[in-house]
């Protein structure tokens, strides 16, 4: 395996992705990701010099809305699925120390 994913890398990706893995899961994930990256490295066989990265398949551009208010008060629906609500707002763990 050419790509070795270290515990530190896994830890770092966990912070970025907000995922926490058990020790066992972590080992498995490291090996899976290493193998996937080895496979992805196949792309390096291709010479892509001078090729523009293609995000959109079609050259569609300038899709706009007019600046007109179309939405009214939809609070009841917006809060319907929230795990925690207080005073019309989403309740979350304290964000400042």
């Amino acid at each position, binding site marked *: 395996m050419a790509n070795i994913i270290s515990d530190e890398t896994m830890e770092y990706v966990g912070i970025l992705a907000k995922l926490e893995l058990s020790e066992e899961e972590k080992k498995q994930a490291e090996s899976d990701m290493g193998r996937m990256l080895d496979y992805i490295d196949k792309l390096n066989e291709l010479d892509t010099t001078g090729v523009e990265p293609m995000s959109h398949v079609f050259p569609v551009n300038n899709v706009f809305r*007019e600046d007109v208010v179309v939405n009214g008060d939809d609070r009841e629906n917006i809060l319907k699925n929230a795990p925690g609500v207080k005073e019309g707002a*989403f*309740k*979350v763990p*304290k*964000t400042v120390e």
Partner: protein
Amino acid sequence: MAKQYETVIGLEVHVELATKTKIFCGCSTEFGGAPNTHTCPVCTGMPGSLPVLNKQVVEYAIAVGLATNCTITQYCKFDRKNYFYPDNPQNYQISQLYLPICRNGGVEIDTPAGKKIIGIHEIHMEEDAGKLVHDEWEDCSLVDFNRSGVPLIEIVSEPDMRSAEEVIAYLDKLRLIIQYLGASDCKLNEGSMRADVNLSVREVGATEFGTRTEMKNLNSFKAIARAIEGERARQIELLEEGKQVVQETRRWDDNKEYSYAMRSKEDAQDYRYFPDPDLVPIVISDEWIERIRKAQPELRTEKLERYKKEFDIPDYDAEILTSSKVLADLFEATTELCHKPKKVSNWLMVETLRLVKENDMEVEDIDFSPENLAKLIELAESGAINSSVAKEVFEKIFKEDIDPDKYVEEKGLKSVNDEGALRATIEKVIADNPQSVEDYHNGKEKAIGFLVGQTMKAMQGKANPGMVNKILKELL
């Protein structure tokens, strides 16, 4: 010998655009409102919702770019900035990193050492976050997405500023330009204009920049000035002690006049930007740019020149009036109604600015109507009310925007122009004050002032002072 240090400052200025709706959905941008009442699936990050760009945001961004001498990026895109925080409903912010809409501009500021150009690195469009309120009673925070998705432009300057004064001059200049364009009201206290300060220090003569910190949470020009002084001192102290400045984001606490590092183990500051696949590129044609350039409202310099030519007002007045879009608009609208530019200017320059200062307000907070000021000027000029009554009425206009015609009528403040009534009162005043009459006849001109005062008092301030003078002299 103590080392001499130079401060190097760059700004990231966020400006909320004056659109009616949010950047990617048809929700209102209106300020205030109960929590989450201006929200929809798009601006609350509901699964399956998709963004559609508000055209007006692009137009405003181009207008600001043109007015700050930027090059418009004619093929630009939105990118996602990925980070987790509860005020960010999708846990990514739609912003621009790779192809921002404007680049390579600059504005000129006045400094004690003369004119100076502050470079603008780029201007990009992005969405604002929601608001977090920290609950006092329970150990939690509350999220309100009313501001989520309000359009912002972020104006990133080059590290061209060297003092708090230059920073304030630059911000003033930006604010003026943007207000003139009508792209934002730029109220610092309401957060429609916000500045993050990137600051480093270096020894005078050094060619390399020092390590910089970024300061956030600056809500007024005063706070910005204090934060710059505070951070400069903190960094110099570190260097003097032989320590390193750490590149970090700090939060300014204006009450304690100190900044705090905002770092946490959970903030990797790795935003994994990539082009947003839900939005398509924006292609800005030469024609579109020209159309916006042509529709550009008159900016400050042009307006100043026009005022000097067109209106019979002192140059100083023209400078002050054009220094704020609100004042200039009020001046022009009122003059249009009453055709007395000099009078309008006087009311704005003296009484209005005095009341702004007394009430600890910003010029941007003025909200009385030109109609009412014009009416007041008519009343005063026609002699229908005297000047002290006019000032009293103006305070009412300033505070409550009352209709002066009605107000004067209701309160019975009209000057008494009835010569018979005046003559009778004055005759009585003369009879009651023989000493003053005698003083006057003995050449004491001042005595007449006392008699005018007595007459006004007897008339409850409503007499026409010119007429009182005339009749008094006649009778004496």
